[in-house]
């Protein structure tokens, strides 16, 4: 009989463990499940009261998460030290106290506070393979007897199984949170991208591009037409990475959009942004930023720089860095109290480039940083392209240069006064099938620029022949682009054709002697016949070929 009673008990203990494990597996609410488990344990072992303590990693204290019986101690905190619960956790062994009066670790503190009289205690650690989670403590076996060694073994088994269930639950919760966080990051990155300015019209003097290295970016740029016809712009980089940086970036960009309409000049805009950022406190983060205002009618730019990479002006004589500036925004209060110095740049037909350090610090294939000189070569390499395509080409070529570790943001501000008079620029695929479209365009634009019809036809022929040379001799039938530029300077029609192929030895396509009747070499002769001047100019940055053809427009 005793044997079958023991069997029955063991089997019902097993049922209890299965029930508890199943509770944990199904429940979303860990606290409720812990309480349910504790109720089952207390009732099975006939305890008058029970409590469940979990270790709180941050404080190192044991905190009561569930409690059964006449006194309510949920939330009670036990700092490391004496007491039966801490002894259980420290030793990682069940503690059986048959009579509390004889145990030196029994403090009686809870009894004193609650009026409960503790006679005996059974406490088992909630731990699994050395990972300590807490303990389950039972008080006073019903009927007046003390807890037994068998009770201790059962409680140890139940608490171990609770520990395992709790570990599982925590893992599942952490994974779900991770998944949720990932989804939020994707969403944040989408919102952030939507906040960047939309692609500008080709005729716009300012264009920007942003390439985030990972989900959310700490970079931003803004292009904001103002009521007086000028255009405010900004580029910025928030220190640090991830969600914090991107939230600060969003705030700074919003401040710029708001303040650019109110404040007079970029220096005041930056000072006002700094003052707003100081009020909220940035917890060690800061923002580097350039703000500027372009007057498209004069080609004049007013700039202010707070700790950002110096902007580069590309003029006829090369690049010039605008070095003036202040420390970054958000560093210390009152740094901008006396305002922020402004620089005046006359674009004079040139371009102003602003970029984040993601551009200069990109790694080239040999591991070195691209640097300022590398950035200049890249910008020049695509100089003949229209602005928006140029920025895209520069960013695309970075993939070839090396790996993107940081966000790359690039802004160009151009003097488009000449273009406003009718200069034309467009990029075409270097393929025979494109020639028809190029000819139609040249005929139209040459007419718009004031060429008589028969002269326009000659210009069509010259451009067609030049494009053939590019397709056949520069790209040698391979893929590539041709940039066509048409412009009028006083009474001169200026046509420029740029390609990105290896430099062609001009001598090889020199005009043939006309005494010699043979195919080939004819195209260059046709070009020289209809144009006043045909020159191969030094290709910018040594990449590609630049052909200039000039014709006087006779009235």
């Amino acid at each position, binding site marked *: 009989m005793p044997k079958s009673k023991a069997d029955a008990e063991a089997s019902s203990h097993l049922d209890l463990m299965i029930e508890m494990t199943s509770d944990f597996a199904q429940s979303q609410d860990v606290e409720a499940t812990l309480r349910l488990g504790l109720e089952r344990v207390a009732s099975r072992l006939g305890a008058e009261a029970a409590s469940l303590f979990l270790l709180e990693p941050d404080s190192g204290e044991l905190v009561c998460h569930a409690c059964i019986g006449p006194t309510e101690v949920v939330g009670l905190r036990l700092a490391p030290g004496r007491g039966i619960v801490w002894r259980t956790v420290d030793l990682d062994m069940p503690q059986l106290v048959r009579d509390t009066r004889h145990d030196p670790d029994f403090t009686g503190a809870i009894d004193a506070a609650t009026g409960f009289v503790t006679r005996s205690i059974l406490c088992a650690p909630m731990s699994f393979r050395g990972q300590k989670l807490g303990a389950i403590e039972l008080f006073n076996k019903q009927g007046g007897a003390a807890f037994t060694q068998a009770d201790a073994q059962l409680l140890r088994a139940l608490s171990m199984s609770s520990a395992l269930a709790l570990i599982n639950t925590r893992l599942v919760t952490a994974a779900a949170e991770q998944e949720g966080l990932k989804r939020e990051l994707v969403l944040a990155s989408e919102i952030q991208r939507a906040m960047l300015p939309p692609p500008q019209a080709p005729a716009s003097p300012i264009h920007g591009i942003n390439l985030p290295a990972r989900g959310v970016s700490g970079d931003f740029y803004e292009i904001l037409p103002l009521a007086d016809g000028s255009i405010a712009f900004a580029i910025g980089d928030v220190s640090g990475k991830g969600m914090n940086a991107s939230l600060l970036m969003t705030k700074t960009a919003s401040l710029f959009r708001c303040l650019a309409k109110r404040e007079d000049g970029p220096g005041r805009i930056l000072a006002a942004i700094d003052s707003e950022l100081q009020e909220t406190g940035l917890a060690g983060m800061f923002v580097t930023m350039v703000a500027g205002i372009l007057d498209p009618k004069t080609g004049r730019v007013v700039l202010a720089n707070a700790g950002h990479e110096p902007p580069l002006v590309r003029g006829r004589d090369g690049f010039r860095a605008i070095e003036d500036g202040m420390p970054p925004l958000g560093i210390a209060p009152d740094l901008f109290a006396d305002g922020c110095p402004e620089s005046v740049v006359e674009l004079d037909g040139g371009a102003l480039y602003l970029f984040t350090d993601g551009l200069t610090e990109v790694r080239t294939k040999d591991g070195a940083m691209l640097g300022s000189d590398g950035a200049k070569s890249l910008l020049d390499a695509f100089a003949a392209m229209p602005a928006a395509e140029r920025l895209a080409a520069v960013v695309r070529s970075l993939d070839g240069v090396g790996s993107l570790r940081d966000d790359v943001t690039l802004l160009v501000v151009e003097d488009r006064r000449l273009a406003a008079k009718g200069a034309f620029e467009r990029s075409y695929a270097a393929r*025979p*099938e494109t*020639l*028809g479209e190029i*000819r139609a365009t040249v005929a139209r634009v040459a007419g718009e620029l004031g060429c008589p019809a028969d002269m326009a*036809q*000659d210009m*069509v*022929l010259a451009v*067609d*022949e030049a494009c*053939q040379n590019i*397709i*056949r001799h520069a790209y040698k039938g391979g893929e590539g682009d041709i940039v066509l530029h048409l412009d009028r300077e006083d009474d001169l029609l200026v046509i420029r054709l740029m390609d990105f192929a290896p430099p062609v030895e001009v001598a090889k396509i020199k005009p043939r002697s*006309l005494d010699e*009747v*043979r*195919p*080939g070499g*004819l*195209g260059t*002769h*046709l070009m020289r*016949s*209809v144009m006043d001047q045909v020159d191969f100019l030094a290709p910018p940055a040594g990449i590609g070929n630049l052909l200039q053809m000039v014709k006087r427009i006779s009235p």
Partner: protein
Amino acid sequence: MNLNTSEIDGTMVMALAGEVDLSHSPALRKALMELMFERRAVVVDLSAVTYVDSSGVAGLVEAYQMARTNGTRFVLAAISDPVRRVLQLARLDRVFSLADSVEAALKG
């Protein structure tokens, strides 16, 4: 570019129309070379050509040279203004045999 070849009294008449540029000139050259290998007399009707570039002219020059070697007739007939302009620029108007019309070319 449109290319139509017919035979009139033993002479091949090739009528070209539209734009003859780098994307079409290989087809023109191939058609001309086939006729030249067959040693046919050829009249090219250029009245409907709206544009020709050096690659198109190069095909005509090559055919002209083969015809001369073969001793066969090769005549450009009814050349349009755009064709005349390019031939003048290349000073080829003095090299080719030119006729005012296909009929005149066939008689000549």
